[in-house]
């Protein structure tokens, strides 16, 4: 794997598998993937630890460790266990959920622009949430519930509208685009007619924030990721085969329709769990799978790697958002976009400069 293969795959942009010396290259690739995943995990842990330490009230690492066991100063224990730990866990879990969901959507649509938006999930969730805030004046819990219901209802509607002697992937995407446009128009209408203060609240929700998330949110999203994550990873092999095309996958014995529906439902549910606790944090679903693939140089969409990358991105973004303009707090969605986007741009630039691409 030291020399890059000559021609990237036209659609996924990944390298084709080597024809000769396959066994050697195979093990080298496994090694590279393992190294990349290990690094991602280590980096996430490191950032996680730092985010427990820093803040307006700084705590040294030994004190953090002490506080984690429930001993040490009462103020330390309060900040670490009551405030920072749940927030950091929320960031990790939401990142994993969004990364995995993004990987599934990109794999299913065989399109790097494939994301929960394409089946209208995000559009439905944010329109429902904005309506809950602006029309009904709901509380945060009601907004979360409204968002999840809106997202699932929209995804179901898109699927039904695309249904016509089975669901053809291309039609699903186009119907998704249409429904998404419709919902965003409704949302924009509400936003322009609303009172400024309420519109600001709705806008902050739409950017996505982890501010003040407690253990309740952690448990909610942990259940989601714990149940749905392994189920998606179990589908990973079939999804990889389906990236070669539905016909090929069918010939290889993959139940295409079933896998498609199952994966869509699981990925939508993961997105729903994430959106419910943090709002629709943009860009992770798009960037995490692409970044993971470019780092690990895998042939397909690395779903597990996308989860790890998502966690790292979100924890880092939340830390930066808290500290960059302290004491002012940036919502994490704004930072994710800047960090993830810049990192992706840098990767593209490096590929461009070395002529690999």
């Amino acid at each position, binding site marked *: 794997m030291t020399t890059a293969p000559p021609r990237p795959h036209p659609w996924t942009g990944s390298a084709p598998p080597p024809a000769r010396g396959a066994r050697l290259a195979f093990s080298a690739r496994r090694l590279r993937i393992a190294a990349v995943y290990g690094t991602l995990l280590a980096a996430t842990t490191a950032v996680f630890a730092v985010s427990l330490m820093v803040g307006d009230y700084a705590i040294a690492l030994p004190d953090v460790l002490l506080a984690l066991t429930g001993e040490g100063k009462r103020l330390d224990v309060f900040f670490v266990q009551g405030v920072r730990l749940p927030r950091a866990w929320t960031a990790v879990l939401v990142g994993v959920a969004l990364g995995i969901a993004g990987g599934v959507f990109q794999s299913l649509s065989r399109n790097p622009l*494939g994301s929960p938006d394409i089946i209208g999930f995000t559009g439905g969730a944010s329109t429902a949430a904005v309506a809950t805030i602006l029309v009904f004046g709901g509380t945060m819990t009601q907004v979360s519930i409204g968002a999840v219901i809106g997202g699932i209802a929209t995804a179901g509607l898109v699927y039904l509208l695309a249904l016509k002697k089975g669901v053809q992937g291309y039609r699903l995407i*186009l119907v998704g685009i249409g*429904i998404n446009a419709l919902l965003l128009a409704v949302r924009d209408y509400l936003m322009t007619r609303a009172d400024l203060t309420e519109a600001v609240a709705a806008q902050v929700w739409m950017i996505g924030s982890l501010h003040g998330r407690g253990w309740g949110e952690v448990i909610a999203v942990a259940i989601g990721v714990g149940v749905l994550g392994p189920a998606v990873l179990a589908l990973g092999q079939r999804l990889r085969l389906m990236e070669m095309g539905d016909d090929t996958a069918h010939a290889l014995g993959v139940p295409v329709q079933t896998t498609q529906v199952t994966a869509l439902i699981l990925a939508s549910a993961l997105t729903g769990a994430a959106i419910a606790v943090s709002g629709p944090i943009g860009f992770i679903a798009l960037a995490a799978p692409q970044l993971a693939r470019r780092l690990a140089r895998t042939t397909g969409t690395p779903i597990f790697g996308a989860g790890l990358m998502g966690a790292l991105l979100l924890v880092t973004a939340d830390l930066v958002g808290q500290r960059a303009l302290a004491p002012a707090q940036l919502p994490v969605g*704004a930072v994710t976009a800047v960090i993830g986007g810049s990192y992706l741009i840098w990767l593209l630039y490096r590929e461009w400069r070395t002529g690999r*691409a």
Partner: protein
Amino acid sequence: MEASVRRVRRARQAASGRPVRNGSHLGCPAFSGKGHRLAFTKFDGVDLSEDSGVPATSACARDAPGRDAVSLEQPSTVVSGIDGADDAEDPAVAESMLDRRTRAHARVHALRGAGLLAALGVLVLCILLSIAVGAKSIPLPTVWDALWNFDGSYDHSVIFELRLPRTVLGVFVGAALGLAGALMQALTRNPLAEPGIFGVNSGAAAAVVVAIFVFGLTSPGAYVWFAFAGAGIAAVVVYALGSRGRSGATPVRLALAGAALAAVLQGFVYSVIVFNEFVFDQIRFWQVGSLAGRDLDVFLKVWPFLAVGIVIALLLGPALNTIALGEDLAAALGARINHTRVLTALAIVLLCGSATAAAGPIWFVGLTIPHVARAIVGPDQRWVLPYSAVLAAVLLTGADTLGRIVVANGELEVGIVTALVGAPLFIALVRRTRMAQL
């Protein structure tokens, strides 16, 4: 059968005194300069190529390498299905077949031309309605009258000072967005691509935020140059990042670079509006996309860019047909891929930059209208581009007019109405027709 077709062609060339062109290594005229005609035959079974392209298609398909060869074979099987295999070796039969097919192509083209004329008729109707309808409705005869002999009356002043500039802007912005979307999807060969992928919308939004936040500007007329510059800079950066080393921009990289830059700029916009309610209040209206409050001044600022962009876009059809064959095959045909890509990118920047500067980001039109155009005429870019332009102009002017009458007082922004009206139509179309893929 193919052999006989080639014999017929040579006989014809010999008869017409032209030399038999067999110099190119693939040995058929379509590969020596008329290659773009092949582009659409691979998609829709109905062969649209003109005279010389037809036999060339089937003859060259065997020689063309790779996956495209398989799909190019399709027309030839259609032909043998019609005429039968046993009499195919007879030159006279082959010649009559050729003539029949030529007539069929002429019919298809005439039909499409008529369709385009009909669409233009609808557009004219939309324009007249958009001038007539408003807070004060003016009867259509008066509108017609005012356009040809202006008499300075109140109605005529309303028409010339308020309605007409807005309508003209709507037509141009609509055509620009439709064309830009069609170009973008052809360039990236991605059905999800829309002009916004070039970072145009977010670049313009970021620049407008700067205009409000730093310079305290608040009127659409004042944003124009900021939005245009922002859109242009973003697009240049995206194109540079999307290209790789020696060769030009590739579809996946373009899409990723655009999405990445858009995200960064969006993050900047978010960061500003979270802390500054005044900017948020301005930007939430700007980013809906509207034609309201645009006077002649805005149009006069942007029209040269729009006009140049539209002309370039309409001329690019044949070249884009070649690109649709895939990079390798297009290069083998002698197409200047990078040349075409750069021109396409330039047209997109001019079109969307000025459209966004004038009306704010309206993303639905550029994304969906090309799909509609392809559903009507198939993937031939020479038809897709003009259809996209006209249909998008119809949608935008129609939506703008509708937005003025559905709400009792005030009006709905055109960006909202386009999506509310266009999306159900689009979905119905997607369900009914088999969509032409890119």
